């Protein structure tokens, strides 16, 4: 294809895309002058270029829309939905024609009169204004040279020829315009110069101006002294300089313009009027003419001063004038050249074929690998003279790699650019109100991937607008805001890019879907009955499924989500959906970053090395039998305590099928490395044999026959030339979660966790176990120090009691229930409790689970060792009293707390715990609960006061002092100030426990003041205070 045409097509396509977006913006904000100017400029450029390339059909359409836009700009027309729609339509027409052009290199046949008529009708709707809009209808005069009516901005050939004939020859005038430059300038940029119509128009204008001035009654005397040709040359040079923004040149010419003294401001104004008339006469459209005339203001001063000085310089004016003009022309020529370069400098870009980039990328990948190999070799050679150059090579390679990677990355916003227009069209067509909220548009991803997700994304947004968002009336009836919102959100997560498409529409109707599924015989009624709503909703991914009752022009054409899904899967991505009927739907697309060079952590399992993408690795923990970190198991599930959280673990050896769990457990020297990985909101530990260093790896996709192995995301070649597999933490998580429920739940739980933490803390982790009988027993997990399985052989009996040697000391073993007995053989599960120096083991039959639930003792118990019964995980469970067992294990345990009686809890007392620290509430609540108190924990004094208003009564209030909003002192004062809780004992808890603070506390109304973290004193204080209250009552 012709280079010029090619360039034109790409440029125009880009411009049209921009116009699309800008128009939608304009519609929302009709008074935004900037946007309007931008649109106008782009459309004008398109029109101008079409004219230049001889594309009449394109040109006429562009011209008609430009007309309308011009009216908008002049304020003669209000921006309306209808007019924007028609303009958008004309853009679509232009696109169509462009597509035809691209295919055949010729304008496709077609009739645009209808569209043009409509555009003209809009434009004429406000033709009252004086701006002379040349209408195509008016162009009945067929130009003999062209054989078609003249278009705006065009000058008849005859007129042009006249202008040229009148123009000075090159020998007389260096400034004489060459028609040739038109080629390089036209259509490049819509500078004023181009809009005016290029050098041709300027030549004509200068010619006309020169002629009119000669005979002008007011101005004639100033100009008549100069030869017509020279005069014309000067105007031409001036306009060229002005319209190309070359002010120096303009200034120069300006000084030469008037060859007589006495030129006044008034005269200059008249001149401007004349210029305008001439320009309009040259079919320059009104605005451009105005702008062109305005630019003359820049030389006003130069012209006026020149006129004043002219008398003195009268003698050599001719020479200077000629010199000046030619200098101006020369400099304007130079400027044109510089302007061309300048344009390039602004964008600083060239077009490079994607294949070339692809090749480059591959080469760089190979280079990186070779570099790594070289580094590996020299690492083993000491004092090699290769060291320094190699380091340099290494550095360059890294930089090269980074830059090549960058060339491929594009912000995802590029793929979204069309969406505002699409949504806008839909709102009109479907009569809905939809707002499109796009976030993370700057998220970059590989351009290849970008191209591939463009269409699926568009399709999904369409779907959301069409099927998802309800009509305004419907929404109002449902109590939703009238306008729906579609949110697009893109972000990086764990080596993937996640794109979410969310709407707040009606969700996916399960009932309707079920009907359809039955109709299409995709499942039987019985099968459907067994499916969850989510499963049924996922049927939308089934081939040939569309739920819209009516097939609109927008969506519902049979190709639907199945195509979207297969497209996404083609690039190795996944798509997931959550939909709540009446609330909305959320799709999330996860696209892996293949083709990329990533940092990988090299780990070892069974003498084989594997890479884990560094991006999903949070930290490394070393766990061994004797260190602080130790792998513990709950019913065969390995976990690790990590900063007060239990981290689920998976053994890489087991995942890869090297070892069974039994083999792993049976190893002698347990010394494991745990790679803490994060997938979404779910973090877990991967237990590996060894961890090496990190290495830059080039992710190569696995062979198609291995695609089904979800534990790998690719493979790579290491520096030493060996191939290793790259583990996919997502796949491993999925595998690890297969039994424990899926990943989503985990995420939801994590979210719930977060929510709970921020709102209030009522649930806590309880360890469920079974001992003597079927019914589960429970103990707050926070009290359990460790979970052990003790070999029966190691259990000894001494002094009539069971003992076990544990960590170099004797640990008494207590049976959790009289009805149970130690196992005959194998291992005995034991809960280890520690309190100060005292460590005891509680032998149980079986450890069941850890659940998070609200600890609410429903029935207090008189039985020793039982706090009461609570419903935990839907089952009645006995909550055991650890203090009782500690007493059993150590006769002196209770004595150790010198005031044992005081510690003995007053059963069933209701406590209110106010503390803003999550950690502290979490720590204290189980302690208090187990001590037999019913605890209500709130996170602020305000929340506590709210409870008071709601009529809650407590036996005692424990309050923190340092709290946001309202501190403990103020709170106490309020409570004591005649409130409902006036007589309730109050204990202050604070890290600030100086005498002064204590005094302040007492003054504020606290009955006691206890330092934080002093559990004993607190418990003592509690029972004392409650006793006092009891005695008083």
């Amino acid at each position, binding site marked *: 294809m012709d280079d010029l045409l090619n360039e034109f097509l790409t440029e125009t396509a880009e411009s049209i895309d921009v116009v699309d977006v800008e128009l939608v913006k304009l519609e929302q904000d009709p008074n935004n002058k900037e946007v309007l100017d931008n649109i106008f400029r782009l459309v004008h450029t398109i029109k101008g270029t079409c004219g230049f390339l001889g594309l009449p059909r394109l040109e006429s359409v562009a011209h008609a829309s430009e007309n309308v836009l011009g009216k908008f700009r002049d304020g003669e027309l209000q921006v309306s939905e209808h007019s924007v729609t028609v303009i958008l339509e004309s853009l679509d027409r232009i696109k169509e024609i462009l597509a035809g052009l691209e295919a055949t290199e010729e304008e496709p046949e077609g009739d645009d009169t209808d569209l043009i008529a409509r555009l003209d009708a809009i434009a004429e709707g406000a033709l009252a204004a004086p701006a002379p809009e040349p209408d195509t209808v008016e162009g009945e005069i067929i130009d003999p040279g062209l054989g078609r009516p003249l278009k705006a901005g065009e000058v008849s050939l005859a007129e042009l020829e006249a202008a040229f004939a009148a123009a000075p020859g090159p020998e007389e005038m260096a400034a004489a315009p060459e028609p040739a430059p038109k080629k390089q300038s036209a259509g490049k940029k819509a500078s004023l110069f181009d809009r005016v119509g290029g050098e041709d128009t300027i030549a004509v204008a200068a010619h006309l101006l020169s002629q009119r001035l000669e005979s002008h009654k007011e101005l004639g005397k100033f100009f008549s002294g100069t030869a017509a040709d020279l005069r014309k040359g000067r105007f031409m040079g001036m306009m060229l300089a002005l319209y190309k923004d070359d002010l120096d040149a303009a200034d120069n010419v300006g000084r030469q313009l008037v060859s007589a003294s006495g030129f006044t401001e008034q005269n200059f104004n008249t001149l401007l009027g004349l210029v305008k008339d001439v320009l309009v006469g040259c079919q320059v459209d009104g605005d451009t003419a105005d702008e062109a005339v305005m630019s003359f203001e820049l030389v006003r001063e130069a012209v006026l001063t020149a006129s004043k000085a002219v008398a003195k310089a009268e003698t050599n004016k001719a020479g200077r004038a000629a010199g000046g003009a030619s200098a101006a022309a020369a400099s304007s020529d130079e400027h044109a050249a510089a302007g061309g370069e300048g344009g390039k400098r602004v964008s600083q870009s060239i077009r490079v074929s994607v294949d070339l980039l692809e090749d480059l990328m591959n080469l760089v990948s190979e280079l990186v690998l070779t570099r790594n190999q070289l580094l590996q070799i020299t690492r083993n050679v000491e004092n090699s003279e290769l060291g320094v150059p190699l380091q340099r090579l290494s550095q360059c390679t890294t930089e090269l790699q980074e830059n090549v990677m960058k060339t491929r990355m594009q912000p995802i916003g590029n793929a979204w650019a069309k969406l505002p227009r699409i949504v806008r069209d839909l709102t009109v067509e479907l009569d809905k109100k939809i707002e499109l909220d796009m976030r993370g548009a700057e998220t970059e991803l590989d351009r290849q991937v970008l191209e591939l997700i463009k269409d699926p994304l568009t399709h999904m947004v369409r779907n959301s607008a069409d099927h998802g968002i309800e009509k305004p009336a419907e929404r109002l009836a449902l109590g939703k805001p009238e306008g729906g919102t579609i949110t697009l959100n893109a972000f990086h997560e764990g080596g993937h890019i996640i794109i979410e498409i969310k709407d707040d529409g009606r969700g996916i109707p399960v009932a309707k879907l079920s009907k359809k599924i039955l109709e299409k015989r995709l499942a039987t009624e019985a099968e459907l009955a067994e499916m969850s709503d989510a499963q049924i909703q996922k049927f939308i991914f089934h081939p040939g499924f569309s739920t819209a009752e009516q097939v609109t022009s927008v969506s519902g054409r049979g190709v639907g989500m199945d195509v979207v899904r297969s497209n996404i899967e083609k690039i190795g991505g996944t798509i997931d959906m959550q939909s709540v009927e009446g609330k909305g739907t959320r799709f999330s697309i996860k696209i892996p970053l293949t083709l990329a060079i990533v940092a990988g952590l090299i780990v070892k399992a069974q003498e084989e090395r594997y890479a884990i993408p560094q991006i999903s690795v949070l930290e490394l923990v070393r766990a061994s039998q004797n260190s602080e970190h130790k792998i513990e198991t709950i019913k065969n599930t390995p976990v690790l305590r990590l900063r007060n959280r239990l981290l689920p673990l998976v053994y890489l050896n087991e995942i890869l*099928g090297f070892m069974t769990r039994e083999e792993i457990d049976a190893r002698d020297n347990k010394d494991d490395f745990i790679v803490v990985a994060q997938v979404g909101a779910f973090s877990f530990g991967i237990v590996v044999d060894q961890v090496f260093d990190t290495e830059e790896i080039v992710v190569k996709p696995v*062979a*198609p*026959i291995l695609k*089904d*192995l979800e534990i790998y995301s690719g*493979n*790579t070649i290491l520096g030493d030339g060996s*191939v290793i*597999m790259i583990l996919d933490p997502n796949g491993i998580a999925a595998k690890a979660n297969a039994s424990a429920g899926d990943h989503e739940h985990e995420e939801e739980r994590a979210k719930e966790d977060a929510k709970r933490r921020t709102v209030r803390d009522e649930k806590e982790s309880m360890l469920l176990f079974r001992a003597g009988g079927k019914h589960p027993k429970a103990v707050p997990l926070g009290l359990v120090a460790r979970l052990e399985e003790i070999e029966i052989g190691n259990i000894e009996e001494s002094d009539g009691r069971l003992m076990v040697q544990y960590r170099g000391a004797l640990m008494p073993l207590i049976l959790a229930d009289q009805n149970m007995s130690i196992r005959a053989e194998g291992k005995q599960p034991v809960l280890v409790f520690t309190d100060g120096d005292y460590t005891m083991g509680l032998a149980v039959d079986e450890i069941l689970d850890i659940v998070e639930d609200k600890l609410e003792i429903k029935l207090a118990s008189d039985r020793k060792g039982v706090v009461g019964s609570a419903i935990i995980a839907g089952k009645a469970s006995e909550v055991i009293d650890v203090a009782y067992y500690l007493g059993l294990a150590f006769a002196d345990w209770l004595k150790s707390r010198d005031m044992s009686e005081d510690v003995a809890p007053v059963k069933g007392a209701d406590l209110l715990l106010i503390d803003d620290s999550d950690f502290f509430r979490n720590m204290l609540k189980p302690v208090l609960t187990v001590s037999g108190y019913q605890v209500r924990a709130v996170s602020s004094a305000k929340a506590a006061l709210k409870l008071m208003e709601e009529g809650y009564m407590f036996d005692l209030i424990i309050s923190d002092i340092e709290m946001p909003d309202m501190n403990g002192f103020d709170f106490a004062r309020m409570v004591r100030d005649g409130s409902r809780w006036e007589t309730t004992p109050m204990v202050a808890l604070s890290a600030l426990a100086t005498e002064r603070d204590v005094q302040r506390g007492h003054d504020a109304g606290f009955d006691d003041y206890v330092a934080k973290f002093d559990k004993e004193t607190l418990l003592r204080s509690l029972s004392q205070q409650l006793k006092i209250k009891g005695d008083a009552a």
Partner: protein
Amino acid sequence: MNDLVVRKELNVVATGSQDYVTVRLAGQTLGIPVLAVHDVLNAQKITRIPRAPEWVSGVLNLRGRIVTAIDLRRRLGLPPREAGKTSMSVVVEHNEEPYSLQIDSVGEVLSLDNQLFEKNPVTLDPRWREVSRGIYRLEKELLPILDVDKLLAFESKDKAA
């Protein structure tokens, strides 16, 4: 592009002769069309892939390309190689992906007259029938010809299963 055209022609058994690389596998000689063979390698370091299908013995590095190694013995239901014996690789391509067929040893290149070619006997083990294009009657022995594409068309087979 050229490659594709050649490959297509291979499927047409016309008069004349065809060239084959012979390989030894568990005492059996097999023929592979010479134009399908990209490379013949000596024993290579192969990285195992846990959890992969059993007939995938791993991946190896062929001049910077990662090649999937196929254990031909397992693929053809032959007994596993005796311990300590090394294997050789014949690198072929399927759907533009390189695969290495692990064999015991490579023999010679034979140019065989098409008249010696015969269809698979119907009684042939189905597993062999599936991947054998036909059999050449050589003087001393019979030479089944491996159809590389069918040999490596796991994807479709797996899906059907």
